[in-house]
């Protein structure tokens, strides 16, 4: 130690510091990489970064060990002729060989039937590029991981309030007084949420966590409310019931900013039953969306177009329109719906005392009302009314996969969104706040997906975006018989609002040839032979299964990964990617940027060390392939390549020629003096690199709040091409979009499209325009007595999915996983703490070790996700604990549920969200 100071000086002299963006997880913190003689010595948080403000997490601080992982892929690999998929026997090939294999294969597919190329990406942060690639290729078969991740959260909230938790918005804990966190273990906003929660607690805020398990964030909650998995919908409904019953709703907010006062046709005989009555006035602001719905004006006692001057909408009652049509305000329908949803009713379902539910509702309602405040920020709403202040009702929520990853998640999350709306906390200080590019429409209708098979044509880009937001049966991507066009059946009658696709269906569907066979499956950054598949063992079998002709049922599998994952072993062709410290990346406003409440922020990664071995950034591979295959957006008129590599692409690509809109918003324009829009700037990368790898564009205060209805914001957003139209984004207390599907199922409504008979009642049941609670599909078809327990997983803070067991430091923290069981539950089965046990679902059985825990609801067992590994993967020794003692729960989760027409995906019937947390199990001593 006496040598310390001399040594410091020695080290310092040769150290240089570069900033970039972390990707040990999807949070995207700013980091400083300290290099000595080109070697990485130390990585810490970048204090100048708005997201993490200098802090880092366990994973981020272990980045150096990922760089040193023995499991790194360093050369393109081809499966050895004659070896089985899964055996992981490869021969190295050159990049030129790899490119020519891909080019030839893809060129042929593109010329014959582009659908036969399926391109799915996992924890991808470059969907702006990957989706462009797929679209330009002409295949509809593209999606990222959202469908198995948290699409229920995205869709449930976007269809209701025009934005969502996840990466699109969040709780304003700086001003909240009560914070209710539901079903969240860690989430994407890792560091920022931790920073915010601790500040919130220190400022005396009250933090309530609703979760079957008490770990992580819930540990520091002032109150933990254990709940039975899959029942949050009932709790939300009961809370709404109480708020309405005790009149603790923000009626002013409901009347003006939601469709609570819109009049719904309640004539069961009408063809427009359940649709909202309109004035038939032409609305110029958005040709895709009407804004002439009717109110019942209490002051004049007549129907009027909504937001007419001086009108005061009725929220309750039943009225007759001029033509005699019986109508009710949407809020009255909600009231009717909530009538039965008493705390006692919910108590039976959720396991939470009715009294506690009442107290929670009271606390929410009273905090919102009694601690509400005004910020002296003047703004003008969409109807021209000027407001001198912005009001805050300081109750904030955050929810994630605990609500989303159930097959009733969409409706539960709608109930939550409505609860938040009843409290009047949407895009208000102290409540939920949007982040650019949100808010968008409810839903954003201009993001059009194609709606017929004709959109797929040889050698032609797809006529539309592969993913988008359907607003009715007309938007489904189906054929004349109602058959799905996409391999994952997204936007078909099976999962009409599958806005993120259903990656978890791809391998099964392709294997079954349902709806058709494909030729090439390309997976990027997804470990589908392990962590991101339900029924993992079966999926591994499918990947290796051959038809009678001896050909693989999925003929060609390309995997781009940076490490030897379980999936890599199944690949025919392996593309070695760079790590996050070796490449350019863009967290673009066209995708999922790191925006803050006060304005858009995008960020980048820049290489701080050269690629290891022959690793090549996957983006460069895509840009190269796109050039070789001659995709229109990637070649010049003379069909020469337009972009040298990804870095070049990012700078020069524009969404449309001359649009001035590109992947990055910072330092645009020839001189780099423009923001959001402007011509390409060749110096853009340099400017980002000099400025902590991010660009932040704070908006004027007057347009930071109430953005759903903020005229100034809409004008700005339209100018900046964040929104197409400056129309108000109404909160959908009553979701007419869902009713359109339901009407089709009833054989009514404006669309001629009808669901196939076997899906009719499914659509009719679940596409309820008002939120409701139903038992998750898998639970519905499981024998309760045989499988009495719910089994769930959650994220450990010090591990990212399946990919950190190769990290020498992180794996010491989580070397293998236990099943956490309440001691009462375990003792009833004579299972010892630390002892071996079996856990069995109707679909499978695994052996694991038990750990008693008082912090889990007795009807639930849980484990850390993806700690167990498959032998042979990640360059772990054959006796590594991950193999010998670890396990993954996925082996117990089914990808299919029994149902008509050969079963159906174990997913939410509305969005296709994978129902990870619906499985029921029983346990025994082993």
């Amino acid at each position, binding site marked *: 130690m006496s040598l310390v100071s001399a040594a410091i000086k020695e080290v310092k002299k040769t150290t240089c510091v570069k900033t970039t963006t972390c990707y040990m997880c999807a949070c995207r913190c700013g980091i400083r990489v300290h290099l000595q003689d080109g070697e990485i010595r130390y990585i*810490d948080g970048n204090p100048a970064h708005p997201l993490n403000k200098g802090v*880092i997490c366990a994973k981020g*601080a272990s980045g150096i060990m990922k760089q040193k992982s023995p499991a790194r892929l360093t050369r393109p690999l081809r499966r050895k002729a004659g070896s089985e998929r899964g055996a992981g026997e490869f021969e190295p090939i050159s990049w030129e060989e790899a490119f020519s294999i891909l080019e030839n294969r893809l060129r042929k597919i593109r010329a014959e039937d582009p659908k036969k190329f399926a391109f799915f990406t996992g924890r991808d942060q470059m969907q702006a590029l990957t989706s462009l690639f797929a679209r330009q290729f002409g295949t509809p078969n593209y999606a990222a991981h959202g469908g198995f991740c948290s699409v229920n959260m995205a869709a449930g909230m976007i269809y209701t309030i025009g934005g969502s938790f996840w990466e699109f918005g969040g709780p304003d804990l700086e001003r909240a007084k009560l914070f209710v966190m539901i079903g969240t273990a860690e989430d994407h906003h*890792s560091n920022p949420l931790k920073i915010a929660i*601790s500040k919130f607690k220190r400022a005396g805020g009250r933090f309530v966590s609703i979760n079957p398990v008490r770990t992580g964030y819930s540990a520091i909650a002032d109150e933990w409310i254990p709940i039975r998995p899959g029942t949050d919908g009932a709790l939300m409904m009961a809370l709404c019931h109480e708020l309405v019953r005790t009149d603790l709703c923000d009626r002013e907010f409901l009347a003006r900013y939601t469709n609570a006062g819109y009049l719904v046709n309640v004539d069961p005989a009408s063809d427009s039953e359940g649709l909202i009555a309109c004035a038939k006035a032409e609305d110029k602001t958005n040709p895709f969306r009407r804004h002439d719905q009717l109110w019942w004006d209490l002051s004049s006692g007549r129907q009027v177009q909504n937001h007419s001057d001086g009108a005061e909408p009725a929220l309750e009652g039943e009225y007759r329109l001029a033509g005699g049509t019986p109508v009710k305000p949407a809020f009255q329908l909600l009231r009717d719906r909530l009538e039965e949803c008493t705390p006692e009713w919910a108590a039976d379902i959720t396991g939470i005392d009715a009294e506690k539910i009442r107290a929670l509702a009271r606390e929410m309602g009273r905090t919102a009302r009694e601690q509400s405040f005004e910020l002296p920020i003047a703004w003008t709403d969409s109807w021209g009314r000027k407001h001198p202040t912005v009001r805050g009702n300081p109750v904030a929520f955050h929810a994630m996969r605990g609500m989303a990853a159930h097959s009733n998640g969409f409706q539960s999350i709608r109930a939550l969104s409505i609860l938040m709306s009843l409290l009047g906390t949407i895009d208000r200080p102290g409540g939920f706040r949007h982040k650019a590019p949100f808010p968008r429409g409810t839903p954003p209708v201009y993001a059009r997906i194609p709606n017929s098979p004709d959109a797929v044509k040889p050698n032609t880009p797809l006529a539309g975006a592969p993913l988008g937001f359907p607003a009715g049966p007309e938007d489904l991507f189906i054929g004349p018989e109602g058959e799905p066009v996409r391999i994952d059946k997204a936007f078909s009658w099976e999962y009409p609002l599958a806005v993120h696709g259903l990656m978890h269906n791809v391998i099964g569907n392709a294997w079954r040839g349902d709806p058709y066979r494909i030729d090439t499956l390309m997976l990027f950054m997804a470990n589908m032979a392990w962590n991101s598949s339900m029924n993992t063992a079966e999926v591994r079998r499918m990947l290796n299964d051959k038809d009678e002709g001896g050909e693989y049922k999925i003929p060609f599998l390309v995997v781009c990964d940076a490490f030897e994952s379980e999936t890599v072993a199944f690949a025919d062709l392996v593309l070695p990617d760079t790590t996050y410290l070796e490449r350019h990346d863009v967290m673009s406003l066209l995708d999922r940027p790191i925006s803050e409440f006060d304005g858009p922020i995008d960020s980048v990664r820049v290489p701080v060390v050269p690629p290891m071995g022959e690793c090549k950034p996957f983006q460069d591979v895509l840009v190269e392939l796109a050039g070789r295959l001659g995709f229109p957006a990637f070649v010049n008129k003379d069909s020469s390549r337009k972009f040298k590599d990804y870095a070049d692409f990012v700078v020069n690509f524009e969404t449309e020629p001359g649009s001035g809109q590109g992947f990055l918003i910072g330092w645009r324009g020839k001189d780099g003096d423009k923001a959001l829009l402007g011509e390409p700037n060749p110096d853009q990368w340099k400017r980002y690199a000099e400025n902590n790898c991010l660009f932040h564009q704070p908006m004027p205060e007057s347009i930071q709040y109430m953005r759903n209805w903020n005229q100034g914001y809409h004008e700005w957003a339209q100018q900046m091409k964040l929104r197409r139209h400056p129309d108000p984004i109404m909160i959908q207390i009553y979701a007419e979009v869902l009713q359109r599907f339901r009407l089709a199922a009833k054989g009514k409504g404006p669309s001629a499209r009808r669901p196939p008979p076997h899906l009719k009642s499914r659509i009719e049941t679940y596409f309820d325009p008002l939120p409701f609670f139903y038992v998750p599909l898998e639970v519905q078809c499981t024998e309760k007595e045989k499988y009495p327990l719910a089994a769930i997983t959650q994220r450990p803070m010090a591990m990212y999915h399946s990919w950190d067991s190769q990290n020498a430091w992180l794996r010491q923290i989580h070397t293998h996983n236990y099943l956490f069981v309440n001691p009462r539950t375990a003792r009833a089965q004579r299972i010892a703490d630390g002892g071996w046990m079996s856990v069995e679902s109707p679909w499978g059985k695994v052996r694991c070790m038990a750990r008693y825990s008082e912090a889990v609801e007795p009807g639930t067992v849980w484990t850390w996700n993806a700690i167990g590994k498959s032998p042979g993967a990640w360059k772990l*020794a054959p006796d590594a604990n991950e193999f010998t003692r670890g396990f993954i729960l996925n082996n117990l989760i089914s990808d299919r549920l029994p149902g008509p027409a050969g079963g159906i995906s174990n997913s939410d019937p509305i969005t296709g969200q994978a129902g990870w947390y619906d499985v029921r199990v029983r346990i025994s001593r082993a």
Partner: protein
Amino acid sequence: MTTKQLALVIDLNVCVGCHACVTSCKEWNDGGSAGPLSDMNSYGKDPTGTFFNRVQTFEVGEFPDTETVHFPKSCLHCEEPPCVPVCPTGASYKRAEDGIVLVDYDKCIGCGYCAWACPYGARELDPTEKVMKKCTLCVDRITDELLPPQDRQPACVMACPTNARLFGDVHDPESVVSKAIRERGGYALMPEWETRPANQYLPRRKTEPKA
């Protein structure tokens, strides 16, 4: 008592058990001037290695009245450090100028006796270098004049996302740590041994609903 005593104060009220302090400590001390810190069986069975800081989890009470407590622990830099006088070589010492308890790796013979003498399990014998190691309070950061002043803090403190780790001079009544101890009821671990740990812990604090 009047000289400086640097220390960490750990706020259990906000620690979420994220382990950021664990790996950033490892990272700093592995790559820094006092490193490396060994890891054994890194990719094999029972991986193990030297860490100066661990985050543990305890459950208090019974369902449903359960508290889950995340509990970080590193050397507490005791004011009466039992580990120091027992050291036969003088490798273990407490710095007069700031109270940091350190090990001189060049003098240590790896006898392990100081670890026996620490009731807190804060020391680890590095299995590769065979000398005793432990939290240095990042003495090579906090005293490094070449670092910008705002970086002269322990690695774990800078890493902690909840700011659950406060750093400062507990002998200076005006320091953040002294104030936190005073105002938030800071307490010492295992007071029964009179080691007078400089590091202290702030208890959980509950906010009840407003009546």
